[in-house]
């Protein structure tokens, strides 16, 4: 064993190590050797250092494990309570998935068919996506391809502010501004209606679609654009026929992320979409989404052990599974279809 290694394991100062490993034949003479000067501070043992490193690493692993634990907690809590829900005599899995009526609070006979809630959620999400995806994508194309630097410097912070506005504010906006305007334009709109809530959710999702799509557009290498220009393409040709298709996986992922946000959005629909669970396709009517139902249950005077209370866990589980599928799909698409340039 070389001399230097032994000195390390006998706990001698770490600082002495370079000096002991200077080859014998080196031209370093005595004054050069003393150049580093005496070691400042106390020498620390390497074993202690190793122990500290190990402790820090395990602390970091604990941090990372916490996120796994969170997922685990979500699955356990939603799972056990949902099972407890289906154990009740009033409900059955068949009713939950095949009945078309959701009326846990009204009437003598309670019905637990999830579809009206899913329908409300999908309606709001649909309206929101019709607003958010085209507008967000076009804004992204504009920011990435068209905007002069100064316009970009204004538009980017504005989009960030829009992204930072709390959803309860959008809900208030839908209730007090969008709905009255809609009712003014067309008398058939209900005070609470899906369309107004959907528009607000769409405005909320717009910055999400925009910023992630823009990242994807920016990742398309210059050479592709230059090639397209070289072939005589106009700016429209280049951005719509070359850049957007090249960034499609990122754009789809952005849209799916926005869908997940819209499905899980709570405050806007709780304020503006109403509380009537029914199967409808009319966006002028009110409808109840899954999230709005949960708010209704937890704000109302429902017993902690009643079947209605448990039903909200089943709805939450459904919501979790829905968003999980959408998120994983987005992750998958981004990972699989991403075109690696360079």
């Amino acid at each position, binding site marked *: 064993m070389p001399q230097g290694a032994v000195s390390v394991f006998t706990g001698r100062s770490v600082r002495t190590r370079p000096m002991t490993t200077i080859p014998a034949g080196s031209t370093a003479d005595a004054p050069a050797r003393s150049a580093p000067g005496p070691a400042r501070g106390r020498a620390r043992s390497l074993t202690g250092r190793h122990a*500290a490193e190990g402790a820090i690493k395990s602390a970091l692993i604990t941090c990372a494990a916490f996120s796994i634990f969170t997922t685990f907690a979500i699955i356990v809590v*939603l799972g056990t309570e949902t099972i407890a829900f289906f154990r009740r005599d009033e409900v059955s899995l068949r009713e939950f998935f095949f009945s078309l009526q959701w009326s846990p609070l009204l009437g003598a006979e309670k019905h637990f068919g999830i579809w009206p809630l899913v329908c409300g959620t999908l309606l709001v999400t649909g309206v929101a996506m019709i607003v958010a995806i085209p507008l967000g994508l076009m804004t992204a194309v504009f920011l990435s391809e068209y905007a002069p630097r100064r316009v970009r410097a204004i538009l980017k912070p504005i989009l960030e502010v829009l992204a930072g506005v709390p959803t309860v504010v959008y809900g208030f906006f839908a209730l007090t501004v969008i709905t009255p305007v809609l009712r003014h334009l067309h008398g058939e709109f209900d005070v609470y209606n899906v369309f107004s809530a959907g528009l607000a959710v769409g405005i909320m999702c717009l*910055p999400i679609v925009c910023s992630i799509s823009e990242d994807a557009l920016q990742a398309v290498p210059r050479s592709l654009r230059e090639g397209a220009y070289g072939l005589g393409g*106009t700016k429209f040709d280049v951005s719509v026929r070359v850049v957007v298709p090249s960034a499609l996986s990122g754009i789809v992922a952005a849209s799916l992320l926005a869908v*997940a946000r819209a499905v899980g959005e709570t405050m806007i629909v709780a304020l503006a979409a109403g509380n009537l669970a029914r199967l409808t396709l009319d966006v002028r009517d009110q409808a109840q989404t899954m999230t709005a139902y949960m708010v209704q249950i937890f704000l109302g005077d429902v017993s902690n052990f009643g079947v209605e209370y448990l039903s909200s866990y089943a709805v939450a589980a459904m919501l979790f599974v829905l968003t999980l599928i959408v998120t994983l799909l987005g992750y998958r698409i981004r990972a699989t279809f991403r075109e690696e340039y360079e």
Partner: protein
Amino acid sequence: MTGSPPYASRRGPNEYPARSAGRRALSNRIFTVVCWIVAAASIVLLAILLITIARQGWAHLNLGFLRNVPSRNPAEAGLGPAMWGSVWVCAVCGLVALPLGVGTAIFLEEYKPRSRVVRKLHAFVQLNIANLAGVPSIVYGIIGLTVFVQAFDLFGNANEPRFEIGSVWYDQFIDESGQYLSVSIDGRSAPPAELRDGMAATDDFGHPVAIRVVSRDESTGETGQVLAGSEPFRFVEKSWYYLQLPFGRGVLAGGLTLMLVILPIVIISSQEALRAVPNSLRESALGMGATKWQMVWRMTLPAAVPGIMTGAILAMSRAIGEAAPILILAGIVFITFTPHHLMDDFTAMPLQVYDWASRPQDTFHEVAATGIIVLLAVLLTFNAAAVFIRQKFQKPLS
């Protein structure tokens, strides 16, 4: 040479219809205009949003609004307790989420594993975080309610916790001079104190008093005389470090739930900040003989701090504006005080705004708009701070 050259398209030249240059120029121009309009639309949207809210809420905006407690009378209603509630909850949230999030990010970015199995585990943690970021915040509310507020009912009801520290329980008697005499007892579930002569008690000012049991005839109205057969009232004093299990619908439960909501955001933004640190810095640190943690602590982290701070501030502004999980957890309660300890009931700004906005009266909508102005002012300050830090400190390192 036979056959077609390898680069020839299968389609003949005439199968791509030639588009006239004029038409292409036209579509280009139309698209440009549409793009400008769409981009302007988002500015107009933000303007409409701000103007309508300012117009509705301007009238109520004054110092009293910031100090007052919620009230049935819209003119007197204020945001005081909600603001302090938000401060408490977000402080808890930030104090827990920041170390946890940055720690996770460091582990994921700096401690890249070499073996295949551990690398799989790494990828799983990464996927898991992306997935957690997509979970609706209301689901976190339900989880917080079950795990933090009720603790799976393992420690009894939240209103009668099986474990508590920092609380002193008293039974109080009213004496003949009208003062409350407090007799210290063992705890929440102790039997009611039995009245007897010479019992040690303290009066309203904390002075020790010996109780004398008297009948109505003997009473002279002096301090310390208590009528025979008086029933005690139970009373509890909670200190600032009062802690109970389960947490109940208090500040701690609310803060931890919000922490769950923003944790993925903190992790992802910290990871991006760490990833932006050039590898040459790491290599130079390792080359100088630094250990891994020395490298992280002295090289990577300082270089990534501006990015981490920006992400953390944006995450905190998300926490301040988040209403759904707290709504599930704490409900709409009429609270007129600021929290004193981590288990105290609370309400938060977005919750109060929701409460006002969901009422049918127009005047309450105006108050809600005023609340929104305050909320947006706080959030804009946070956003501005984030932008400032990004502009000021984020230098390109490579």
